[in-house]
């Protein structure tokens, strides 16, 4: 007996060693390196290397924009949650699906989408120009705080709709009815009963949205322009443009501290408060809007949601098929109208620009990175969940080790990689080879969250039965675990693949000028002049969006009901 226990301890240790080694080398080492760099430099220099304003200014702006974004997201999201939880209207399901799309989009796609709507070459300006015969774009909404806020609302409203909407539709409707029966007006019943019971989920959603807004990188970098620096953008600027790694590191630490604080609060707010007492056995039915107030509410909400949540992506896709200006190098030929040219150009080797990289190369790179990420993250994830499963009572302490990468931003990860591996001879010139590693770290927590419930759902008896019928442990894994885990593994693979495909933060540190990923290429094309560059950026963004949407549709299809990663 003791021998067997010893053996199982060794097995558990062996299982732990691989993912733990990976995390130690590629996550904790870079993290420690950031701390060491910051503290050794600052101490030796007597904290004179930076001005406090270099920290407080981006921190202040980050908090400011995150607060504003969160408030705006709630202003749209809460009524929208009410709309979807209570009312039946034509196209409800379709709109519900459309509205979840923004959340899964890579940041570059969002930036490109807003560019096609509000940018100088966007639909709004093109429309106004042709309407009033103007020679230059009348409005410039890009590079402004409002663009950042709009994009954040676009991104995160679906979190509020999802989290608050689900608890609203599961709320026992007898509770507000009982309040009315006891003499509370509908408004009073809402205030005294519905709202307090929804508060935990509203709080969770608020913190979640705040966290996403707080650590937003790509959106702020691409839509905010140079004058708006959040912590994340400032880390990038300090590291990549000013080569001031200690300040970048210090910003990273501040960022990490805030992220962890908010995460702890989210965890707290997620604790169920009233058990099942407030939950209806069946979700309450939807009703058709009655009376002018309700009808007006539904119409206004649907219109606003379509405008804010759907037009950007529609605008991106349509704009990628239309040409409105003479392309460079084809002077005189003004072809306005429908075109497939931008898509054709993705696969052509046209070398005119200094920084020119054929788009097809970026697509190839991204596919390779995503493929490696997919396999690496899922393999590590599988080993990790078995390790967590085996460690029994220790797992509550060990699980957070794997989940912590979720708290560190991709930009921090990129910075850490730069400090640890950037100057190493080993990686000289092959720095971008670390991209799949960084992507795997980003994907790993989600992969574990997908696999763990599936593994915990496998009855132990089943495995014992297989073993008692003479199956070796590996045979038992193949015959019992694998078929049951199959869906979860497929979901993990897809998750890792789409995450890698759209990842921007870490890639912006790691990718080589000559070897960009799709998001990096889009970022570069967008910031360059010329209709062709713009069109190619849009074409690539549209393709990336289609892949991500397709991926999440498949994930939704094969995922077992009741499993949610967020």
């Amino acid at each position, binding site marked *: 007996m003791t021998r067997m226990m010893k053996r199982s301890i060794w097995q558990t240790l062996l299982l732990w060693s691989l993912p733990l080694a990976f995390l130690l080398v590629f996550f904790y080492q870079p993290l420690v390196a950031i701390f060491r760099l910051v503290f050794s430099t600052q101490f030796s220099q007597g904290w004179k290397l930076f001005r406090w304003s270099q920290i407080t200014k981006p921190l202040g702006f980050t908090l400011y924009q995150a607060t504003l974004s969160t408030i705006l997201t709630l202003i749209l999201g809460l009524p929208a949650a009410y709309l979807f939880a209570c009312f039946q209207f034509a196209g409800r399901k379709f709109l519900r699906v459309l509205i979840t799309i923004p959340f899964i989009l890579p940041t570059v796609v969002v930036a490109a989408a807003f560019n096609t709507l509000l940018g100088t070459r966007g639909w709004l300006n093109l429309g106004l120009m042709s309407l009033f015969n103007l020679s230059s774009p009348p409005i410039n909404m890009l590079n402004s705080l409002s663009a950042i806020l709009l994009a954040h609302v676009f991104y995160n409203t679906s979190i509020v709709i999802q989290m608050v909407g689900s608890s609203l539709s599961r709320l026992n409707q007898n509770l507000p*009815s*009982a309040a009315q*029966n006891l*003499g509370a007006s*509908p408004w009073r019943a809402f205030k005294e009963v519905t709202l307090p019971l929804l508060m935990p989920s509203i709080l969770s959603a608020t913190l979640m949205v705040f966290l996403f807004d707080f650590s937003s990188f790509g959106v702020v970098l691409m839509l905010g322009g140079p004058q708006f620096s959040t912590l994340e953008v400032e880390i990038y600027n300090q590291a990549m443009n000013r080569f001031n790694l200690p300040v970048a590191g210090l910003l990273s630490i501040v960022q990490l501290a805030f992220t962890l604080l908010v995460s702890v609060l989210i965890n707290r707010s997620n604790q169920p408060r009233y058990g099942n007492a407030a939950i209806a056995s069946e979700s309450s039915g939807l009703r058709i809007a009655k009376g002018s107030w309700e009808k007006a509410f539904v119409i206004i909400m649907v219109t606003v949601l379509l405008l804010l949540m759907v037009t950007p992506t529609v605008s991106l896709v349509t704009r990628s098929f239309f040409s409105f200006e003479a392309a460079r190098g084809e002077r005189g030929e003004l072809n306005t109208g429908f075109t497939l040219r931008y898509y054709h150009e993705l696969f052509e080797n046209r070398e005119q620009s200094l920084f020119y990289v054929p788009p097809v190369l970026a697509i190839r790179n991204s596919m390779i990175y995503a493929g490696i990420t997919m396999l690496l993250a899922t393999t590590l994830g599988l080993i990790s969940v078995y390790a967590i499963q085996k460690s029994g009572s220790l797992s509550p302490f060990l699980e957070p080790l794997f989940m912590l990468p979720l708290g560190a931003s991709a930009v921090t990860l990129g910075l850490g990689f730069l400090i640890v591996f950037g100057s190493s001879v080993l990686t000289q010139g092959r720095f971008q080879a670390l991209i799949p590693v960084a992507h795997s770290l980003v994907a790993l927590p989600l992969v574990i969250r997908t696999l763990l419930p599936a593994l915990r759902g496998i009855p132990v008896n089943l495995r014992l039965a297989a073993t008692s019928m003479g199956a070796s442990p590996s045979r038992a894994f193949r015959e019992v675990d694998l078929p049951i885990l199959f869906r979860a593994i497929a979901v993990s693979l897809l998750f890792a693949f789409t995450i890698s495909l759209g990842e921007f933060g870490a890639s912006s540190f790691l990718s080589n000028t000559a070897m960009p990923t799709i998001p990096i290429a889009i970022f570069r094309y967008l910031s360059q002049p010329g209709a062709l560059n713009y069109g190619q950026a849009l074409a690539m963004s549209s393709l990336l969006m289609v892949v991500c949407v397709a991926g999440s549709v498949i994930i939704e299809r094969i995922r077992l009901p009741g499993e949610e990663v967020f």
Partner: protein
Amino acid sequence: MLSVRDIYKTYEGAPLLNGLSFDLAQGEIICLLGTSGSGKSTLLRIIAGLEEAESGAVYWDGVDLAQTPAHKRGFGLMFQDYALFPHRNVYDNIAFGLRMQKRPEAEIEKIVGERLKSIRMENFAKRPVTELSGGEQQRVALARALASDPRLLMLDEPLGALDQGLREELTQELRQTLRDSHKPVIYVTHDYQEAFGLADRLLILHDGVIVQGGSPQELFENPANAWVAGFLGLGNLISSNDLPNDRILSGQPEPNDETVWLLRPFDARTGDSRADTPFNFEGDVLDCIYMGERYRTKLRTPQGIILSIETPSLCVTGEQIKVYWQVEDVLCLKS
């Protein structure tokens, strides 16, 4: 007092309440009986103003309540799941209605104290309602409904969520509380025994209308049709085709396909068949259960009819016995 007139309501396209009407007098306790899904809860919600009927009206002292919103009706409704507010403790749940009436806090404290005392839960004031047992929740829900002194009290299967032993205990307590309140009460249940024990008058809801109303005794002696007799478990329902002897009976309506005979178990007589009654049966004993003083015996006739009868002595399973009902004990019903 309360008049409900021609209430019509559909559920998923099919009529649920189909022109339903009834009246309720001051201080009267009526039981609304019906199978689950018959629209009893919906009817209570319509009376309470929480749901709208598609047509029909609810009157109180002759005044149409169509324009009176739920919170101004002053009708207490106790929900089937009790609907206690999980974010409030016992005291605050009971005080909720009084606070909505903006009563002074001292008065609220007095009333809630009395209510807690009447349900023998004085020490539970600060307890979260989520920690109460089913029976305690039921008491708190009743106390909450009564605290704001409603002019009408409606209870939706108040004992439905409790187990059998507790139900019997609480039925007595509930009967006392309802009698003491002197309020008109609509009590909804699907359990006729519970209803018989509580109500002055019973209303039977079937196919969206009140098929019969009356005192327990009236219903018992004269069920309006075969469905009511079956629902109340009054006895064996035998269609005229199943009778071994189809002689026309004097004084009874002409039997046709729609006629059903009600043969009550305790009117059954064992022994040789008699010529003056067509209700003669012979069958094998399937089962015999001691019910206290008498036995409940199940018979199967050669035609496959199952009869339930009461016998003074134990019958042996498999034994063949003869049984008959006298004509004057048999009731002819429409199916």
